[in-house]
């Protein structure tokens, strides 16, 4: 078995942004994503998900390192200022590198 290094980018943001984020993901060249219904808290206060307007979504995407960088840069320049969100990157290893 040989494992290949990839980046996992995790984004937590207002659920209302989901469609727009998925579009952005496609624009930077990702092949898929996974979305989690979540709630939480942060600088913009509690997001308790009691009503859909206050729900969050976490989006995770496994990508090649170059794409991770583009993605984070675009989040920074286009969305960080106006929306409640966090994003981070970490290292993962996959079996089928050409899938991502």
């Amino acid at each position, binding site marked *: 078995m040989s494992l290949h290094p990839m980046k996992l980018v995790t984004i937590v943001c207002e659920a209302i942004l989901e469609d727009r984020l998925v579009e952005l993901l496609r624009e930077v060249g990702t092949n898929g994503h996974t979305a989690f219904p979540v709630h939480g808290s942060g600088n913009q206060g509690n997001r308790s998900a009691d009503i859909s307007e206050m*729900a969050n979504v976490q989006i995770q995407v496994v990508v090649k390192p170059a794409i991770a960088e583009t993605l984070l840069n675009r989040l920074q320049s286009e969305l960080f200022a106006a929306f409640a969100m966090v994003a981070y990157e970490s290292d993962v290893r996959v079996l089928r590198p050409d899938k991502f």
Partner: protein
Amino acid sequence: MDFVTAIQSNLLSPAVLFFVLGVFAAVSKSDLKFPEALYSTLTIYLLTAIGFKGGVAINEAGISTVWLPALAAMTLGAVIPLWAYPCLRKLGKFSISDAGAIAAHYGSVSAVTFIAATNFLKSIDQPYESYASAFLAVMESPAIIIGVMLGKGALGGKFSFSDPGVRHALRDAVLGKGVLLLIGAMIIGSLCGKRGMASVEGFFVTPFQGVLALFLLEMGMVAGRRLGDLKKVGLFLLLFGITAPVLHGSAGVLLGHWVGLSIGGATLLGVLAGSASYIAAPAAVRLSLPEANPTYSLTAALAITFPFNITVGIPLFFELAKYLNA
């Protein structure tokens, strides 16, 4: 029945009492919590039921009866943000986008407040035009569009229809779930008429008032959880959250009286004008005016204006309508 009796009769309805219970549950930090799926389900049910019933009523009354008051309602919804915006800018010192966002919420309408008002009228045996939910349907969108245009800087000439935010708002104002369900169910109801109603009455009518009570329990919790945000919104918005419904509601009652609605119908138009949206507007405004702080509009609509209308506003507008008619 005078004002005090009207308030009393309203306050002692299951719907309002469950709302109070919900506020208590939130404030006392009980572990009671509605699953989000239940909140969505209740919203879908209430919008569909009210739309369908309104459609059946339109089918009965004929479009020729409905168009004039509906047009009046729509105009009122479009005008409210036009006066609210400068007031929020000048007196409230809000930013352009915040003022536009709040104006959009207050021009648009709250379906649940409307439903609570119909329940109030039913409970005191006051008749009303049952096609009144058509007013609800047509008042949701215009204010959102105008509020977003204002929030994008329309008054400063900065606004353009090709702005993606504006196009998004237009889309959402027409295709957002609230409007889509209301208008869609209304068209269905007007196509099916009485015969269709007979088949689905056991679902859309029989349990309706009880479902509303359950929903208001949840709305009480939702509002209660936001009471802490009252500190953040400032004194001006607190006052605005109570003054605006009184002013807008009175204008609505007057207009309703003027276009020939009955006491019940004028009350409902008042309630609509006086209410602030928290389903259609927040979603549309958030993506169109991302710089606006949603805490302002949501707290004002949910934690101030909604409770005010549910408890005091509805009987107030009713008394005003009665007074005008006397």
